[in-house]
């Protein structure tokens, strides 16, 4: 059956209707006469990182502190490999986006003076169970934003090096979308599911990061030749065992300390950075002193009840686990474990290499949220702030970005459509029309995904090697991934739900290949909790630089770049696009 074709044109196209994407849309909605299109592969109502809710805003500048203080904190936590200009520009907007969230209906806890009640240094406490519906309802109330739900984007449309739109398909029906725009903002999230997960069986998707964030935002950019940064700074979250629920609510909420199996507090031996805390738990276990726990035994029954409620608003499986075990947190310590490694620019510095205005290295393309590199510890407010910054910059650049000519893009669109059709053509169908039959593939996308996760776990520093890897192992991973990538080109499905799974696998494989190149290129161990390079086990300050990469003539090339402290603006070569 041929694809039905839908063509649309907008001033600004936003890819991904999660935290940053919705906020970019709301920012642009203030400008009457501007047409904005948002694509989302699920439905913006609950899609993205906020589906289950959150119970704190993790990045807020409290009275007595400044955005510069937050910059110092992030620089320390990331061991120096950050972009000062990016962290500072988002931190300067933390409090204004919180103000707007409260106007939209977010419930925020206040103290007796009327100020937001703090948790730790930078957190404020909220009821965030419905934070995503609040955001998405605000988007639906706008007049100039059109939302295309259930549309998965697969490729940027480009003209003379400029991004002028995107192509995708409906995950519900056999419809292809060709969307042209003067500017494109990518907010498609980070990458989960690259490595074998904590619970590889039935509960394989019980993970920290959304399993539906499959690295598509990165893959789109890599394919189109965008420069990417710092993929090697993977993120390993320290979580409650099995449910992979957050630990901060217990650690900060009831002051529970991390202890090993002998009851010793071990965090002081490893440092209190995010990587240090993760490394502590991993190494204590690796050295035979596990399991490690958050020491909750002995908390009050009121604290028990508050914890059970708090988790219902963001990770209900943890509450259910306490109930299933028949023991409340006051009666048993909460066991800890590290997650599988993710690539996620909201927590580390991985993602598109952008200028201060969130322009990518491709003219007409902007990035915000988890896809944008250089600015770790974004959390919700940083993603919102970046959505706002990217939207403001795209809007300012629009006069120099005319709508592309239709004819010039038709060949690209036809090639993309042909690939969709090939994946949905049975192996035994003779070539007909534009869709040539592919060679047979014996596997399903699920089987190849499992194979990819095994390769990454075995040879690229997954959970079972305690996040350790060597160059010799990375060589094997690279070779195996090439084989899996070749197999994936021949995958077939029967409907666009299958096609979605095929593209998610292809996107993940490409992100894995980039990740391996980055892991190999940084010859030191800077963030031991996120990955341990056994060939180069220490921190080496000659590596105070960025590892960047770009696909050039089909080969991924590494570019080392000096640390950036001041604001930068990208210039693009003249083009007639």
């Amino acid at each position, binding site marked *: 059956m041929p694809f039905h074709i839908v063509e649309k044109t907008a001033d600004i196209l936003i890819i991904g209707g999660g935290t940053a994407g919705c906020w970019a849309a709301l920012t642009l909605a203030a400008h009457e006469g501007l047409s904005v299109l948002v694509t989302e*592969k*699920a*439905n913006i*109502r*609950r*899609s*993205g990182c906020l*589906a*289950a809710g959150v*119970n*704190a805003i993790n990045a807020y500048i409290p009275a007595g502190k400044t955005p510069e203080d937050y910059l110092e904190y992030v620089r320390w936590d990331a061991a120096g490999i950050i972009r000062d200009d990016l962290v500072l520009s988002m931190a300067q907007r933390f409090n204004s986006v919180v103000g707007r969230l409260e106007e939209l209906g977010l*419930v*925020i*806890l206040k103290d007796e003076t009327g100020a937001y*009640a703090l*948790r730790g240094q930078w957190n404020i*406490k*909220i*009821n*965030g*169970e*419905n934070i995503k519906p609040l955001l998405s309802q605000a988007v639906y109330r706008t007049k100039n934003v059109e939302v295309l*739900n*259930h549309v998965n984007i697969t490729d940027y449309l480009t003209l003379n090096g400029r991004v002028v739109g995107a192509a995708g398909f409906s*995950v519900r029906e056999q419809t292809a979308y060709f969307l042209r725009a003067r500017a494109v903002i990518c907010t498609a999230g980070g990458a989960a599911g690259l490595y074998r997960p904590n*619970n590889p*069986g*039935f*509960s*394989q*998707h*019980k*993970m920290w990061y*959304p*399993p*539906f964030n499959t690295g598509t935002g990165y893959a789109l950019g890599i394919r189109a030749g965008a420069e990417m940064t710092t993929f090697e700074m993977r993120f390993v979250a320290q979580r409650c065992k*099995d*449910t992979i629920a957050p630990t901060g*609510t*217990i650690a*900060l*909420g*009831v002051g529970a300390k991390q202890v090993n199996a002998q009851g010793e507090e071990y965090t002081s031996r490893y440092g209190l950075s995010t990587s240090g805390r993760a490394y502590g738990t991993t190494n204590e276990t690796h050295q035979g002193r596990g399991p490690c726990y958050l020491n909750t035994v002995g908390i009050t029954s009121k604290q028990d009840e*508050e*914890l*059970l*409620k*708090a988790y*219902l*608003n963001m990770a*209900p*499986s943890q*509450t*259910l*686990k306490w*109930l*299933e*075990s028949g023991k409340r947190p006051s009666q048993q310590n909460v066991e800890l474990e590290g997650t599988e490694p993710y690539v996620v620019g909201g927590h580390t510095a991985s993602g598109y290499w952008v200028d201060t205005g969130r322009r990518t290295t491709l003219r007409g393309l902007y990035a915000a949220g988890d896809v944008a590199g250089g600015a770790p510890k974004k959390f919700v407010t940083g993603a919102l702030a970046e959505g706002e910054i990217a939207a403001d910059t795209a809007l300012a650049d629009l006069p120099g970005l005319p709508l592309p000519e239709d004819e010039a893009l038709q060949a690209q669109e036809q090639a993309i459509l042909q690939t969709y059709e090939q994946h949905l053509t049975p192996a035994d169908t003779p070539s007909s029309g534009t869709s040539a039959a592919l060679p047979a593939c014996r596997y399903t996308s699920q089987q190849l995904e499992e194979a990819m996760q095994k390769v990454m776990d075995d040879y690229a520093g997954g959970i079972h090697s305690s996040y350790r890897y060597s160059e010799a192992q990375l060589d094997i991973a690279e070779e195996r991934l090439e084989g899996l990538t070749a197999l994936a080109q021949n995958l077939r499905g029967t409907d666009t*739900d299958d096609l*979605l799974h095929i593209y998610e696998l292809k996107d993940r494989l490409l992100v894995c290949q980039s990740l391996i190149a980055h892991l190999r290129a940084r010859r030191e161990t800077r963030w031991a909790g996120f990955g341990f390079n056994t060939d180069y086990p220490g921190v080496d300050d000659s590596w105070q630089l960025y590892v960047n990469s770009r696909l050039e003539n089909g080969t991924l090339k590494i570019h080392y770049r000096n640390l950036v402290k001041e604001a930068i603006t990208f210039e693009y070569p003249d083009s007639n696009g």
Partner: protein
Amino acid sequence: MSILIQTDKCRNCGRCIEACPGNLIQVNPQGKVWLRHPEECWGCTSCLKECQFEAIYFYLGADIGGRGSLMHTRREGDLCHWIVEPPDGRPVVITVDRRSANKY
């Protein structure tokens, strides 16, 4: 990690289909709502909270500590009652007020 859709309570309103962040809930060829990929469920419980008919139940896989209890939600204005029914015991109800912020 997964959910059960009780087809006798489901009225095919489609809210869960639009709530799922993973496109996992779909309509089968017989026109009924079903979970197409049970092993791909994230456990976010968006679908439970959107369901007006208490037709969706959430449970933990045995691989992560599940012992067969089913969890669902009942809305009452700003209140959300989380009801956990063990296979052989009395239900536990925990009520969360949407207007009150997390204390931790």
